[in-house]
């Protein structure tokens, strides 16, 4: 008798689940799909795809890399933000870096060492060093100072491991010259790959550089597919793009303004420049002139 009622209860539960599955799992999404076919919604429901000369080149709302096969920036295009999605802007592996605010210590590559698959050891860059390296590279590309607080001149995190008798600039692999010669009377050494510095006290050194390269340019987004950059980063890139294209920088700035989304209702979100649309507009402008 008890068993019977147990079974009856679970059969009722199963029937309920199946009925609700048909309603909520099939009919509902299909109905939303059907209504979303109406003109005006259809383009968006299909992914806001953009075509050039009849060929789809991407989605208005999904960012892309504008780099060559080696990953070097194409100078005639505005560059997107750094991306942690796969090899960069890969919608099949959307992701953020997930590195924390105090991720400042690199694992230096050991020269000659190989990993399990026989590839040379590449070590592991901390988030701080990634930021510093990006900033330096962007500075060189755009012809501005790529320095930042907590970064060394050579584009790694300026971090010391402090011991009683010495300090080590752990992210600068020997034979690099440490970014400071001494720290509170202790001599500063370069970092030896493979050496265990865990027992030292971690001291990041701020320095007194003011960053020119904007924050979004040196940090990865949450999705890894961020279609936007800030107006500040677009402005930084404008002269380089204009030069590469032989265009008037004023015209490039006009296009930036055209492709800048302002805050919705004046207060939601932040102003943003859609990189793919801007680059397409540049291509069109060139074709038109």
């Amino acid at each position: 008798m008890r068993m019977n009622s147990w079974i009856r209860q679970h059969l009722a539960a199963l029937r309920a689940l199946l009925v609700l599955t048909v309603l909520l799992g099939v009919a509902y999404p299909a109905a939303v799909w059907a209504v979303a076919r109406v003109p005006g919604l259809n383009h968006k429901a299909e992914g806001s795809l953009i075509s050039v000369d009849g060929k789809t080149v991407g989605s208005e709302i999904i960012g892309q890399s504008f780099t060559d096969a080696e990953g070097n920036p194409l100078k005639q295009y505005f560059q997107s933000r750094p991306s942690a999605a796969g090899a960069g802007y890969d919608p099949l592996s959307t992701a953020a870096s997930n590195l924390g605010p105090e991720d400042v210590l690199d694992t230096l590559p050991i020269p000659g060492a190989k990993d399990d698959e026989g590839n040379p050891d590449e070590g592991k860059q901390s988030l701080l060093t990634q930021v510093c390296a990006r900033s330096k590279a962007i500075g060189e590309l755009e012809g501005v100072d790529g320095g930042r607080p907590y970064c060394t001149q050579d584009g790694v995190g300026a971090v010391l491991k402090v011991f009683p008798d010495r300090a080590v600039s752990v992210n600068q692999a020997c034979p690099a010259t440490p970014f400071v010669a001494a720290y509170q009377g202790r001599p500063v050494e370069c970092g030896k790959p493979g050496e265990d510095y865990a027992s030292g006290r971690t001291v990041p050194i701020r320095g007194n550089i003011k960053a020119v390269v904007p924050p979004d340019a040196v940090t990865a987004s949450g999705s890894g597919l961020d279609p936007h950059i800030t107006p500040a980063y677009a402005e930084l890139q404008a002269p380089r793009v204009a030069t590469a294209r032989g265009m008037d920088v004023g015209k490039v700035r006009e296009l930036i303004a055209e492709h800048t989304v302002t805050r919705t209702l004046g207060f939601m979100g932040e102003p943003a420049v859609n990189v793919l649309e801007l680059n397409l507009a540049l291509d069109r402008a060139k074709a038109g002139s």
Partner: protein
Amino acid sequence: MNPTLAGILFIGSLVLALALVYRPFGGYMYRVYTGTGHLAPEKFIYRLIGVKADSEQRWGTYVRSILAFSLVSVLLLYGLQRLQDKLLFNLGFDPVVDHVAWNTAISFVTNTNWQAYSGESTMGYLVQMAGLAVQNFVSAAVGMSVAIALVRGFARSKTDLLGNFWVDLVRGTVRILLPIAFVGALVLVAGGLIQNFNGIQTVATLAGGEQSITGGPVASQEVIKELGTNGGGFYNANSAHPFENTTSWTNWFEIFLILVIPFTLTRTFGLMVKDKRQGYAILAVMATLAIASVTLVNLAEISHNGTVPQAVGAATEGKEVRFGVSNSATFGAATTLTSTGAVNSFHDSYTALGGGMLMFNMMLGEVAPGGVGAGLYGMLILAVIAVFVAGLMVGRTPEYLGKRIGAREIKFAALYFLVTPALVLIGTAAAMASPEQRASMLNTGPHGFSEVLYAFTSAANNNGSAFAGITVNTPWYDTALGLAMVFGRFLPIIFVLALAGSLAAQQPVPVSAGTLPTYRPQFVGLVVGVTVILVALTYLPALALGPLAEGIR
């Protein structure tokens, strides 16, 4: 406009919108759960299920119905994932690995939506729609049913009947969640979310490379993911993905969806106990905690302390340009104050104190305003504990809403409160004690510990967000976190319904001069204080090893 002012207006406009719908929508839900008539489609559903819609259940039967429904849900969802390669729209994906499939099944049935998998490369469309999204609806409806049953316990007297679970489940789904989801999904499509079955299209990019554009029935799933405070993303990047959250206003709308039911249920509560002031008092407790938390997370992120945020000049790592720092922080607070766990920015890269605050939000037990239903019943338990504390201070038998909080009642409330801290702290300790489990941490030092603490806090509180650097698709974490989710969901539900049963059986105590009024600001302050102090005492040592060690120099 300066970004700080814009951020304040963003929060203010959400408060205003919630205030506007509070009375009509709360009244609507009251009529849904107390009305005696059945709609034609509902009658049809009851016939298919084979339940007598007009007979009510005792608390034990109510619990058993929930457990039966959840059990078959887990089994069906597990089966769908394991047989994925034989299903339609599977995009060519393999069956989901057994431990991931079990973890995911548990996770969606418990309204957690912790994801040990990456959506775009694991789950086909049918599993997403007919498996995961269905649970988004029904796990939310289960939470609301439990809350309503508890409120009936307060509102009724000298009865052992708490309502009919199947009726509450179907009404919550058909009359509340489904209509809002349908309209909301179309609103989101208008904002740019996708709703198609196109599979993966490869396109040639401008720079001469290739990009695979994904498809899917995203809008229909996104809306219920927020409205039902579920949080499981169609894609790995969750609501940071432009296809899940396209513009700054879809972001606003998604936060609104997250908060609307949990806050508004307090109105339904007030109407059901026939004293709207009681509803306002609970709302005031929730709102006080929520506003404080949103403010603190915003402050932490905008002031961007910490080495990397200082080097960058803003806390932009893991955040999208279109949302900006402030709106991301507001979303992060909303998702952890409720049991949602959707993210539009990645919590692992938040500043130490900002991320710590998100963890603290969950540790509050997700009561401000909490998950759909779960927030209300969690908060009512805290109110019971608060009147008990007050009763101890003045030496009177505590009462709440005319019901005596005796030994039996306070035991259920105390057990309820102790479940999650036990799961969180024991789980975290077990993981940290093993070198193998420690190896799952992406970050080192206090931040790595925070990843583990966050994972167990999120699982046991049925939140589902993560400090996502941690590698959790291992058999150990899938099992341990799966258990934390099961116990963190169903033990409290059992204690709540047992409490409801014992309250419903009581004869109401008449109000006297010695009765503590539970609708005055004094009581609101008492509940806020009890909540914060209890949680702080429970978790401070663990927090000190993680976010506090990292954030305070």
